[in-house]
């Protein structure tokens, strides 16, 4: 029983990390159809933002809050730069954005290496997040509790923004039909930039949060990227609630597989499960309903 609760807690925690990493993608990939492989590097940029901020503000609640805000802005700005310089030209060629942004990712990794060196750097965990919470006999580090809450908060904010604000409607309209949006009076460029800013900013936030539990090194983004994409795929394109469920489902699945086999086998099993799942629900948990043939 303890084991089950422990693994459930672990799964939720893994899930919230996946969710945080995938949330930005569900905007840029899910909404705009841009397969941004540099998303991992935006996460990395968030990690290093936390590292840099720490040079000025000691690890503390305030420091973390500043880092989260700064991470959002840094990620967002990187995203906007990427959009303006490259992605703008590629909306009609989604698969090509994948390769182009892969190249961008390589370059960003190398830039990080040249600035901060290849070895990992250390970001301190603020004192109030040290230690762990004991829940039904299972122990969950406070850092993970914090990430869980942060992920939920981000999802809620994003969902509300997409559904209830004019900005959210505009973003969805533009991603659905650019020409029609433009000729309905929506400034599609501004909407693209907003979308990319938020999506990439969320990657930055994820990066800051991840420094609480993992390493900060130039290649850190890569370790989350594929899983994050799988979350979006399983959740269903452009479906935030799908991403939420998928992230937690994959997290829990992973934690139980890992407990009963090994981490390597668990990875393989999760992949097999996804393929099987797609046999049942090829469009992901929440399929986009269209009548078109696209």
């Amino acid at each position, binding site marked *: 029983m303890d084991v089950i609760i422990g693994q459930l807690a672990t799964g939720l925690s893994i899930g919230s990390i996946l969710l945080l990493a995938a949330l930005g993608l569900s905007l840029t990939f899910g909404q705009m159809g841009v397969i941004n492989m540099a998303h991992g590097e935006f996460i990395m940029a968030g990690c290093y933002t936390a590292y840099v901020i720490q040079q000025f503000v000691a690890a503390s609640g305030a420091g973390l809050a500043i880092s989260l805000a700064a991470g959002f802005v840094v990620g967002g700005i990187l995203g906007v730069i990427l959009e303006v310089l490259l992605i703008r030209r590629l909306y009609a060629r989604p698969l090509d954005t994948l390769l182009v942004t892969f190249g961008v990712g390589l370059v960003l990794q190398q830039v990080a290496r040249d600035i901060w060196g290849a070895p990992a750097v250390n970001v301190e965990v603020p004192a109030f997040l040290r230690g762990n919470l004991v829940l039904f006999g299972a122990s969950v580090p406070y850092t993970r509790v914090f990430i869980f809450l942060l992920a939920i908060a981000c999802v809620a904010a994003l969902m509300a923004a997409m559904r209830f604000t*004019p900005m959210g*409607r*505009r973003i*969805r*309209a533009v991603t*659905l*039909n650019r*020409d*029609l*949006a*433009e*000729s*309905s*009076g*929506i*400034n*599609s*460029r501004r909407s693209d930039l907003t979308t990319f800013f938020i999506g990439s900013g969320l990657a930055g936030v994820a990066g800051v949060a991840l420094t609480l539990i993992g390493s900060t090194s130039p290649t850190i983004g890569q370790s989350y990227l594929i899983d994050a994409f799988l979350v979006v795929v399983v959740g269903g394109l*452009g479906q935030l609630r799908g991403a939420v469920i998928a992230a937690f489902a994959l997290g829990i699945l992973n934690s139980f597989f890992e407990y009963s086999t090994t981490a390597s086998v668990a990875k393989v099993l999760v992949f097999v499960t996804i393929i099987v799942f797609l046999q049942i629900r090829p469009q992901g948990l929440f399929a*986009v*309903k*269209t*009548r*078109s043939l696209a």
Partner: protein
Amino acid sequence: MSALLTMSGVRAGYGGSEVLHGIDLEVPAGGVAAVLGHNGAGKTTLLRAAVGLLPCKAGRITFDGREITGLKPHARVAMGIGYVPQGQQSFTQLTTAENLRVVADGRKGGKALIDESLDLFPALKELLDRKAGLLSGGQRQQLAIARALITEPRLLVLDEPTEGIQPNVVAEIERIIVDLASRGDLSVLLVEQHVGFSLRASDVYYVVESGRVTHSGASDDTATHEVASALAI
């Protein structure tokens, strides 16, 4: 009547190929201009150039005396050009209500504008919560016109607005267009295959063939025969 929209010497096309070879056209202020022509003549292309979805390679477009040749579509919408594209387009993943609101957002009296347009197309009231992508073709077309009206256009650009619409609604659309135009504050640039409809609704007509205006004139009694013979060639 002075011209609200003028296109002079407009050349435009897709990629390397030119489709419009120098179009001259005027939409009278408060009037309706109809564009007629065979399939592939370049009517849609002409409208896309007028609303800014296709850049002009040469020529000028002015709206209300101001040059708009290089403006983006959304900027033209802000100036008062509303567009209903061919093919019953809508934001498929947004509900009918959201399709209307996304356009009304940020406009003064947006809510009232929505209500007004729903009064024109009562069928949409039943469908407010359905995703536009799930509507039937005709339902989507009604939605498209409603959406364009919310932008409070002074010029409404319509590309085959009755294509795929049930006859009684076609009649209704025709009535609405004529009504709106006759209020004096709305001009219309209309592309339509139904010659009768077009000429009844319009003040002037243009026949486009192979990217050029070959005939034009006032849509009076003689126009019917002019157009018929022009299109029969």
